[in-house]
C-alpha cells in the first residue's frame, strides 16, 4: 500500500536481482509483451517505469538449445542434490549444505536415521464409525515433508509410496492401515530390500490393496504374486504365468489384523442388532498381517524353477536370488533420482554393488549420489518435478511451512493426490506430468499461494538458490522487468526452470 503512494520520481531501487546477467542467459529473445504485463501481475498496481533490462535483438528464433550445466560449481552441485534427494531446500538448509559441501551433505543425508512424524491424533483408532479423513492424512504427511529434519528419509518414503503403492480408497479409511503403511515405509526406507519386501508383503494396507489378505491356499488370488514380481522386484517378462500362480499359492495364508477399535465397533454393532459375536473373533495386537497356517497352501509347488513347500520368507529370498532384481530396482531408483535414460553400464555398476551389499539401500543411494553420472552436465534439469515435489519446494522456498493443507488440496488437479495413485504402478513421471491441464494448475498454485500470503519474503537471490542462476532468456527478462518481489516470486515459481530438477 505504501508503495503505491510512493511518488514516481522517488529513487526506489529498481535493480534486477543480483546475478541475472547476460552470461546466465542463453540466448536473447524478445519478451516485451510479457514485460508490460508483468508489472501488474499480482494486481498490486505498480505504476512507473518499465523494464530496466535492455531488450535484446528481436525474436531470435531458438535452435535446439539446452540448459548450460552449472554443475562444476560447488553450490550448484548442492542445489542439484537437494532438489533431487530432498524436496528442495529452505535458504537455511541450502546454506548449511553449501558450507558442508557436496560430499559431506551426501553423507549427512544418507546416514541419518529417519525422523518420525508426530502421531496423527485418532488415526490408530480409525473404524467404520470414525474413519480417517483422507485430507487430514495427506496434510499430516505433507506437513512432515515440509518440516522433517531428515528430508532425504522423507523423499525416500515418498519414493517407496510410489513404488510399493496402495490407495486409500481400496485400503479403506475405515481402518488405520494406510496411515500405518506410511509409518512403516518411513521406518524401512533406508534398510535393505529383503527387510523391505517382508514389511511390504505383510503390511495390512498392502494385504488389502493387492488382495493377499483374502487369498487362501485353496483358492489363491494372483494379484499380489503378480505385482510383487512385475512391479516391485523383477519386471515383466522375467517370470512365467505359472510362476504367478505358484507364487499366489506359496504366499497365501495372511489376513489383515483386527484392531481393538475395529473389534469394539463390531461387537457394538452385533449387540445393537441382537447378533452373537463369533466366539473366536478377537482383536489382534500386531499392526502387521496375521499368518494363519490353516489358510496357507499345503504341498509343494514349482516357483521360479524350484519345487518345494514354501513360506513367505522363502518366496522373497527366491525372488531376491534372481538376477533381474538388482537391475530392476536400480533402474527405478536411477530414473527417479538421476536420469530417465540410464545407460546399461551405469545400471550394472550400481546393481552389482547393490547386490554385493545384500541390497542395502544406504549403499545404493550413496553410490547413486556419489556417481559421476549424478553430476554429469547431461543430467542437469533432465527430470520433471512431480506436483508434490514442486509444491513442497515452493513452500520451502517461500519459507512458509503452513501450506500443507493447500498442497494436499491442490494435488488432485495436477494428477497427484497422496495415498491415491492413478494405478497400481504408482505415479507418472517426467514428460507425462507436462500437459496443458497440469501446466495451468501449477502456475495457478503459485499465483494463489502468493496472493494468499500476508507477507511475502524478500526475493534476494532466490534465483541463485533455487535455480542456480541458470535462466532462460524469457525468465531472465521477466525477472529483470519485475517491479517487486511478489512478481519476482511468481516468475520464479511458475517458470519452466522451477518445474525441473
Amino acid at each position, binding site marked *: 500500500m505504501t508503495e503505491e503512494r510512493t511518488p514516481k520520481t522517488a529513487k526506489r531501487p529498481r535493480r534486477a536481482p543480483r546475478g541475472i546477467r547476460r552470461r546466465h542467459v542463453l540466448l536473447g*529473445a524478445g*519478451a516485451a509483451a*510479457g514485460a*508490460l504485463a*508483468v508489472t501488474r*501481475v499480482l494486481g498490486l498496481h505498480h505504476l512507473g517505469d518499465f523494464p530496466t533490462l535492455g531488450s535484446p535483438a528481436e525474436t531470435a*528464433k*531458438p*535452435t535446439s538449445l539446452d540448459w548450460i550445466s552449472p554443475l562444476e560449481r560447488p553450490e550448484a552441485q548442492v542445489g542439484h542434490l537437494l532438489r533431487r534427494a530432498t524436496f528442495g531446500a529452505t535458504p537455511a538448509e541450502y546454506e548449511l549444505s553449501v558450507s558442508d559441501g557436496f560430499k559431506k551433505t551426501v553423507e549427512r543425508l544418507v546416514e541419518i536415521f529417519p525422523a518420525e512424524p508426530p502421531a496423527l491424533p485418532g488415526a490408530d483408532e480409525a473404524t467404520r464409525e470414525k474413519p480417517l479423513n483422507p485430507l487430514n492424512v495427506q496434510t499430516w504427511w505433507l506437513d512432515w515433508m515440509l518440516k522433517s529434519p531428515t528430508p532425504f528419509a522423507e523423499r525416500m518414503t515418498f519414493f517407496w509410496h510410489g513404488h510399493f503403492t496402495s*490407495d486409500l480408497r481400496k485400503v479403506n479409511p475405515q481402518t488405520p492401515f494406510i496411515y500405518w503403511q506410511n509409518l512403516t515405509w518411513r521406518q524401512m526406507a533406508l534398510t535393505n530390500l529383503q527387510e523391505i519386501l517382508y514389511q511390504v508383503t505383510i503390511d495390512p494396507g498392502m494385504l488389502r490393496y*493387492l*488382495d493377499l489378505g483374502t*487369498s487362501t491356499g485353496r483358492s*489363491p*488370488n*494372483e*494379484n499380489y504374486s503378480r505385482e510383487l514380481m*512385475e512391479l516391485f522386484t523383477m*519386471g*515383466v517378462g522375467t517370470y512365467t504365468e505359472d510362476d*504367478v500362480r505358484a507364487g499366489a499359492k506359496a504366499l497365501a495364508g495372511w489376513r489383515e489384523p483386527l484392531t481393538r477399535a475395529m473389534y469394539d465397533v463390531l461387537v457394538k454393532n452385533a449387540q445393537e442388532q441382537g447378533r452373537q459375536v463369533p466366539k473366536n473373533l478377537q482383536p489382534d495386537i500386531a499392526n502387521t498381517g496375521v499368518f494363519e497356517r490353516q489358510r496357507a497352501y499345503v504341498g509343494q509347488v514349482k516357483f521360479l524353477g524350484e519345487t518345494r513347500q514354501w513360506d513367505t520368507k522363502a518366496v522373497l529370498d527366491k525372488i531376491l536370488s534372481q538376477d533381474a532384481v538388482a537391475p530392476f530396482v536400480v533402474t527405478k531408483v536411477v*530414473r527417479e533420482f538421476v536420469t*530417465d*535414460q540410464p545407460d546399461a553400464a551405469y545400471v550394472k555398476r550400481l546393481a552389482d554393488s547393490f547386490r554385493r551389499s545384500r541390497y542395502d539401500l544406504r549403499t545404493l543411494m550413496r553410490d547413486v549420489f556419489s556417481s559421476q553420472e549424478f553430476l554429469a552436465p547431461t543430467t542437469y534439469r*533432465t527430470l*520433471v518435478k512431480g506436483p508434490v515435489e514442486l509444491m513442497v519446494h515452493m513452500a520451502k522456498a517461500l519459507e512458509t511451512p503452513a501450506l500443507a493443507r493447500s498442497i494436499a488440496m491442490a494435488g488432485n*488437479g*495436477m*494428477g497427484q493426490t497422496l495415498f491415491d495413485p*492413478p*494405478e*497400481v*504402478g*504408482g*505415479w*507418472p*513421471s*517426467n*514428460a*507425462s506430468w507436462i*500437459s*496443458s*491441464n*497440469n*501446466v*495451468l*494448475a501449477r*502456475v495457478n498454485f503459485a*499465483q494463489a499461494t502468493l*496472493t494468499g500470503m500476508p507477507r511475502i519474503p524478500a526475493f534476494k537471490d532466490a534465483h541463485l538458490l533455487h535455480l542456480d542462476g541458470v535462466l*532462460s532468456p*524469457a*525468465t531472465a*527478462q*521477466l525477472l529483470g522487468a519485475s517491479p517487486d518481489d511478489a512478481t519476482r516470486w*511468481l516468475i520464479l515459481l*511458475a*517458470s*519452466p526452470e522451477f518445474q*525441473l530438477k
Partner: protein
Amino acid sequence: MKQIGGTNGLTRRDFLRSGLVFGVGAQALASGYAAVPDFLARAVLSAKSAGVQNDRVLVMIQLAGGNDGLQTLIPISSSSYRDLRPQLSAAAQKAQPIDKDFALHENLKGLKRLYDDGKVAIVQGVGYPSPSFSHFDSIRVWETADPARKQQDGWLGQAIVKNYDSLGHPLVGCACGTTSIPGALRDLQATLTVIDDVRTFGFQGGGNVENVMGTLYKSTPGIYGALFDTAMSTVRDTVAQLRTSAAKYTPRAAYTDKVQLVYSSKNQLAAALQLASELIVTGTGVKVLHVTLGGFDTHYTELNRHDALMGYLDSAITAFHDDLAAYGMADRVLIATWSEFGRRPKENASGGTDHGTASPVFLIGDPVKGGLYGETPNLAKLDQLGNLSYAVDFRSVYQEILASHLGVDARPILGQSFERVPFVKAQAS
C-alpha cells in the same frame, strides 16, 4: 503420407536417436515419448495438407483395470458360466436379455434402451494373440495398437498427426476429466489438450498473469522445453475457446457424478462427458475425445463393485447420448469402450476374478449398426491357463472406427489391414 520427415532433413527417427526420447518413467508408462523442438513440429505440421475428412467425432471410454466382459454381456444360457462362477453368476437372474443366450447387466438400463433402438453394437471376444496379463503391458498394446510393442505413439495420436492440423487446432484431440495425456492420444507430433475440470480451467489472476505466462513459456531450452511451451500455448488457446463455448452451451440431459462407488478413481465420468458434449456441440473442431473410468480391477467382492460401475457408466453414457441427441448432433458421434483385458472366467476365493483375456467392446451411437458381432466366447473350451480365446483382433475394431467412422486411412496407423467388422453404418455423403 510419408512426409513426417520435416523440413530440415531431420526425421523423427533422428530425434529418437539423438537421445530426445524420454519419459519412460515407471514401467507403468510403457509408451515412450519424445520431444521435438517446437519450430520443427510446426514445420512438419504445416507441410501437411490439413483436411477434415468429415464432421464425425469419436469418444473413447477407457474402462481401466480390466472390465469383466462376462458380467457385462452375460451368457445367461451357459451352464459353464454358472459352474465357473457360483457367486458371480447371481447377476444372470436380474440381467436384461437381448436374445436367448445373452443379457446386458441389470444396471445397463440406458444401454439396453439404445440397444433396442439399434444404436449399440457389441463385438464379442475382442483380444490379441499371446495376451499379456500385466495391466501396463496390455494397456500399452491397446494404446499403441501394436502387440509387437515396437510402436511408441498412441493409435489416436497417430490418427491425429496423420490427418489433422492439431498445432493450429489443439482441441482436435482432447482428454477430459484427467490431468495427463492418455497413452492412446500420445504422439510425438500431436498437440493435445487435457482438461481435468472445466470449472477451474482458467488463469488465476486473469489476463495479466496469462500474458506473463505466455512470455515466460517461450523458447524454453532443454529436452522438455518444447513440451512446456506447447502446453502453455495450448492452455491459452483452450481458455479462449472455452470462454466462447461455455456461453453457448447448456446441458440438455441430466449428468450426475453423485454416485456411491465401492471404490474407483475419482467419480467424474459424467462431468468429463458433459465437457465432451460442450466441445462437440459448440463447434470447437474436436475430433477425438478420451475419457476414463477406473475401478475395474475387481480381484475381490466383485458383485457390488461391478454393479456400481455398470450403473455409473450407463447413466453417464446415456446422459451424453441424450444431450447430443437434443442438440441434433448424435448422428455425428461414435462412443467406443476399451479395456486392457477381460477377466478370468473362473471366480477366485475373494469373490472376484483375476486378470483374463478377451472381452466385448461396446460401440454406441447413431452411426452404429446395432447388434452382436464377433464370436460367442466358448466357456467350455478355455485355454491352458483357464482363459477365453479371442475371436476378433482389437485392431479390426480400430480399423472400422478409423476408416468407416472418421473416414481416415487406417492402414498407416495399424500397419496392415484386418478383417472388417462392419458395425458402422455407411455414411450418406
